[in-house]
């Protein structure tokens, strides 16, 4: 790890290029890299600008950086509606303001891309752009004028940015505003060095190989831990209750994955039975008193509500699941769409397969990044809830995708990635 970081920092530090791209698969230490880079540069006396995509990400980053470098003066650039988070204000070194002019004393200034886009003056020699694959290229266009060179860090396997308008006007242009920031950057600067963080510290060995093969076929990565490093135990025994739930949880505990399959049926999106199954699984999981043993906590750490998440494809599914969890022990478990779970990490996740209950898969449901995000948020185990029949659905899927000239083909293909994941989930571990 540190070897890779050194070489990234030396590339970025050298006067030669204008930028460095770092591809980071899920949990490969992206934040560690960003914090390290920010510290190193700031301590060398450079004023640095940092761009993240959401307020949540900005706050996380500030918290980590301020903890790692307690004497560093940090500026938190924010919109007027922003309510400073506790984890930000607790650090006395952080200045929160809507104006860059208040940041003159800050060695590092951090804000969302949307906020940076409103800044009209000032320039920074170096910038770090975090979650650069989540950023749309039109946003990069708006902020790129503020810096001379930049380190772009992100996960290429996640969801591509999208737009509510569907026009084909820009298809094929190297600066297509709907493409990701990195895609556009590399098309115009093909010589920029691209580094890869080769090891996932989040995903356990059981998940790293599967996720790598399905979603990163040309840029494989490995788990940074050994199978013996991660262990999930239940402190309460299964007494009574639904056998099926416990069997699923046991499989997940043992192997890191479980497919909780419901009888084949075409359903509406908010499949009531699937929603109920998820609610049951999550509450059952918490009732079983799960304890996670890992390199961070060799003596075990209880898996509490904040360490569990539920993921789904659609907002209405999320709403239905939240409703089902309300009033249970799992009421405070995070439930969100793949979009909003990007970059997050939990011990155990329960996900509703995007293709569950569908008769026909749309491009939305098949998008590789969606499944990738859902299947790569966990440190210990991931339970996938799905109707049987996904294999047939994939098998009968017609391929009628339009082709635009001069638009690079995006890999992995959603169909293939789904096929690979499914093969693993339904096979024997």
């Amino acid at each position, binding site marked *: 790890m540190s070897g890779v970081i050194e070489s990234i920092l030396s590339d970025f530090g050298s006067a030669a290029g204008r930028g460095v791209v770092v591809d980071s698969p899920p949990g490969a230490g992206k934040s560690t890299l960003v914090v390290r880079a920010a510290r190193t540069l700031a301590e060398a006396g450079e004023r640095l600008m940092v761009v993240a995509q959401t307020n949540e990400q900005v706050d996380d980053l500030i918290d980590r950086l301020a903890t790692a470098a307690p004497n560093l003066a940090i500026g938190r650039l924010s919109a007027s509606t922003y309510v400073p988070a506790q984890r930000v204000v607790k650090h006395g070194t952080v200045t929160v303001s809507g104006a860059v002019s208040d940041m003159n004393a800050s060695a590092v200034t951090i804000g969302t891309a949307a906020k940076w886009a409103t800044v009209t003056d000032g320039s920074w020699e170096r910038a770090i752009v975090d979650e650069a694959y989540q950023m749309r290229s039109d946003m990069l266009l708006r902020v790129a004028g503020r810096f001379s060179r930049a380190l772009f860090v992100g996960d290429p396997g996640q969801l591509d940015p999208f737009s509510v308008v569907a026009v*084909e006007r820009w*298809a094929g242009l190297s600066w297509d505003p709907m493409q990701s920031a990195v895609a556009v950057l590399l098309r115009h600067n093909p010589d920029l060095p691209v580094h890869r963080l080769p090891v996932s510290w989040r995903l356990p060995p059981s998940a790293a190989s599967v996720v790598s093969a399905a979603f990163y076929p040309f840029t494989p990565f490995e788990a940074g831990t050994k199978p013996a490093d991660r262990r999930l135990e239940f402190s309460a025994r299964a007494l009574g209750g639904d056998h099926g739930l416990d069997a699923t949880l046991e499989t997940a505990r043992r192997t890191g994955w479980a497919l909780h399959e419901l009888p084949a049926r*075409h*359903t509406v999106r908010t499949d009531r039975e699937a929603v109920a199954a998820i609610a049951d699984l999550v509450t059952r999981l918490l009732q079983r008193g799960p304890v996670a043993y890992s390199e961070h906590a060799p003596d075990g750490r209880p898996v509490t509500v904040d360490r569990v998440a539920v993921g789904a494809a659609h907002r209405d599914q999320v709403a239905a699941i939240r409703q089902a969890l309300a009033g249970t022990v799992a009421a405070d478990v995070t439930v969100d769409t793949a979009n909003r779970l990007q970059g997050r990490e939990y011990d155990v996740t329960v996900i509703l397969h995007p293709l569950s209950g569908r008769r026909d898969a749309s491009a939305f449901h098949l998008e590789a990044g969606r499944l990738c995000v859902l299947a790569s948020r966990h440190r210990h185990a991931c339970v996938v809830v799905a109707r049987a029949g996904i294999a047939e659905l994939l098998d009968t899927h*017609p391929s009628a995708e339009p082709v*635009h000239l001069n638009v690079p083909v995006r890999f992995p*293909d959603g*169909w293939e990635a789904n096929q690979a994941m499914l093969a693993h989930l339904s096979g024997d571990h």
Partner: protein
Amino acid sequence: MDPLVDRLDRIRGTVAPRNHNARTIAALTSNPGCGRRGLMDAAGVNKGAVAGQLGFPAGFGQSRFAIARGNAFEAQVKADGAAELLQLLRDRLGLAIPEVAYDDLSNVGGNASREVRYARTKALLARAASERDDAGTLFDHPMLRLEIAGYYAYLEPDLIAFRAGGKFHVVEIKSFAVIDGQADPGKTAAAATQSAVYVMAMRELLAELGHPPESVSHDVVLVCPENFANRPTATLVDVRKQLTVLRRQLSRLTRLESILDALPAGLSFDLAYDSDQQATRPADELRKAVSTIDARYSPDCLGTCEMAFFCRDESAGSTSALGRSVRDDLGGVESIGTVLGLARGTLTPGAGQEEIAGLLRFAHKLRTECLDGIG
């Protein structure tokens, strides 16, 4: 003979199997869930003729203006030993192509059979592939073949293959325009899939000669008229995805056993042509035969399958006829009658229909409430 092929032959009847071409092979990917189409295609049944005999002739005509335009453009690109094309490959794609020889493979003396032309293509490509440097040869009208469910489909592309950087490239000439770098995405997709068929066939040919698949590039060269002029332009199109899809569908065609097992033994789509080449098979009988195989109609069929008008008629009253997304939104409820019954509460939801029934009832209430008094 292979029992599968034998069975398919009997299903097709007395006529020779329909000759596949790149377009019909590409069309195999358009509705892989349809058993009816899968079987008819595997057996080489002339779907257009069957549909016509059923009283639902397909309307897939082609305008002579379009055909003439296509031919003229192709001839122009290939004129003078494809001089214009070579210039393009060098200038636009930066391919280092040495002085070239031009081989027209359509002319092998006399009226050569497809097999003979295939053999000649193979021999020439073998020679080119074994040469160390880029052979720098353009092959016009090569003859390729692909095995489709036990039969060889001969592909007679208007394609030219050339070798650059140690790889063969497939060139596809189409007469739709590329305007300011953009072309019709549907037509481009069709061209990409057809080119992928050629890439696949060439890879098979070279594999027989012991060359790895990478010896044929997955980047095909699409040549189209540029803007509003007649001048050709060339664009590289990456067909890796299309290749995967094709491979998958072709392998499915030979997995027909499950469909075949369920069919009555004497099933046949023979149209019983008489000596005047008139089909005499009674329509009802044919309809019965066709209906024994499950279809999976969706409106997309209208653009991709000759049987579409028949299958549409057959699916009247089903939610499939309203479109894939409608059917999916309705949680798989199959009949329109059921949808309305559930919505109005006149039908008790069956097992697993409670949720969609609830939504439909609410939707019905909303529509009634909002449209009350509006004509």
